[in-house]
């Protein structure tokens, strides 16, 4: 059974099937430093393909002469005075650290 929302949009969702190869999810998961369980990869691959197919409809628009919009406010990024307004509070900065030692965050060894 279709849900009301799906019924509503079924006529609008003309999706051209798109496939993405099996290496794509591991590749972007690696870029995002995101561990994905192997058994989830094929489902995610299908989900990603369906979303990418759906956004393909943007290609119906010719945007070759359109300036990309990154900020709606249109104002320049304001600069503040180059003075110290905050700081010297390592306890607050470190208060949520999973691991810390003498005013430092601790991470696994990165240099042999």
């Amino acid at each position, binding site marked *: 059974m279709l849900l009301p929302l799906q*019924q509503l949009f079924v006529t609008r969702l003309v999706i051209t099937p798109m496939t993405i190869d099996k290496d794509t999810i591991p590749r972007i998961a690696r870029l995002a430093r*995101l561990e994905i369980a192997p058994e989830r990869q094929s489902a995610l691959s299908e989900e990603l393909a*369906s979303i990418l197919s759906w*956004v393909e409809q943007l290609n119906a628009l010719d945007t070759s002469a359109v300036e*990309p919009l990154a900020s*709606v406010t249109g104002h320049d990024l304001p600069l503040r005075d180059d003075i110290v307004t905050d700081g010297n509070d390592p306890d607050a900065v470190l208060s949520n650290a999973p691991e810390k030692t003498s005013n430092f965050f601790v*991470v696994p060894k990165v240099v042999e």
Partner: protein
Amino acid sequence: MSDLLSLTAVAARSALDKKECSASELTAAYLKAIEDTADNNAYVAVTAEKAMDMAKASDTRLAKGEGGALEGIPVGVKDMFCTKGVETTASSQILKGFVPTYESTVTSHLWADGAVMLGKLNCDEFAMGSANETSVFGPVTNPWTAASGDLKGKALTPGGSSGGSAAAMAARSCLLAPGTDTGGSIRQPAAFCGMVGLKPTYGRCSRRGIVAFASSLDQAGPITRDVADCALMMTSMAGHDAGDSTSIDAPMPDLMAALSTGVKGMRIGIPDQYTLEGMNQEIVALWEKGRAWLEDAGASCVPVSLPHTQYALPAYYIVAPAEASSNLARYDGVRYGQRVEGATLDDMYAKTRGAGFGDEVKRRILIGTYVLSAGYYDAYYIKAQQVRRLIQQDFLTVFEQVDALLTPSTPTAAFPLGEKMDAVSMFLNDVFTVPANLAGIPAISVPSGLSSDGLPLGLQLIAPALREDTLIRGAAVIEKAAGFDYVATGAAS
């Protein structure tokens, strides 16, 4: 006073001034309401002791005649706002145990005006969702239930992402609720729960101290019981903040005055493209009523065209995940949040993020990473930004002819929790709300009627940038004409 919970914020504030009740009594009544309605899972933390302390301080200020605009008013805070000394999780496993050392600017404004914090409210994980089902704390139940039809007897979603906030408002377990809206996360849950929800102009409310989702779209705004409370709360929340580089330094129009201005002579556009094929006839009929109400009050309604509307959702679902994947890179298990140990630094990152994020957040990080990755950046991300420009241009053009736009808030009323829906179908909830986020312009949802099953439906007004006063003028007229005075079956009493 016998029924403190039935007072709006404006009425409660007046009752406090007249000494008809104390802030402590009001807060105690709401803390009891939270206990009585705990089954809806709206609250993820109740700060009862802090609330009573703040209420006592309010009583002291009121006794001296120094009460602020929101003095003694009990507020429930969406868990996307950092609250100093109170755990803030964005309803995500990865932020469990995170206790901010600072307060968000928006909530600081509320406390500075005398409001009382009751606790933190459930939401979709990192505000990514439209049904409040992606929260690590589990879903929230809408206090409204269908009186008849297929939905009768089913637990319904309050909408999302501000689902806990809208549900708590409808359950009368808080009197005001700040929400955040990236693609409809204030307006859609407000509509599903019979509340007023306003997303202001981008930059009106500081984003400092709000957990970031998609920074070019995120805006905080009020969820309230009526339009007057919305005007009151919006005024408190807004304001320039040097701590947010996108904050606007422009005075807010007098929203309390706008409540009684009316719409005589106002021109309202009815966008052709918001009529969808196969649309729910009840929604169409309500939209038509809204138009008649505004015309009866002296506005003229004209059809207008926003030709790129259909491209708003797909553009949004490129821009928002792209920004999210970048923003959420900060959750690395080093500075805050949870960590899962790994053999190497990269291994620790991947394990921490794999365990800490839920499925919907992972999906959006992957989409965002994909559209920003080498070889795809221009085809997806730049393309979406170009389409975003066209959508903004549509609004700029149409606002040369009209003062505001009238549309439905959502394509349906609240739907059942736990329905299997694919990602794209879930995205379609936001079809009427997303364009205002892309264009950075203000929009309000007003409860305007009930479906034949007895569920709330909302109408949306959209205005040009910085014209929140236009929204309040129109919303006040719709509210009066609609006479929406229904209370959810799951409300505390």
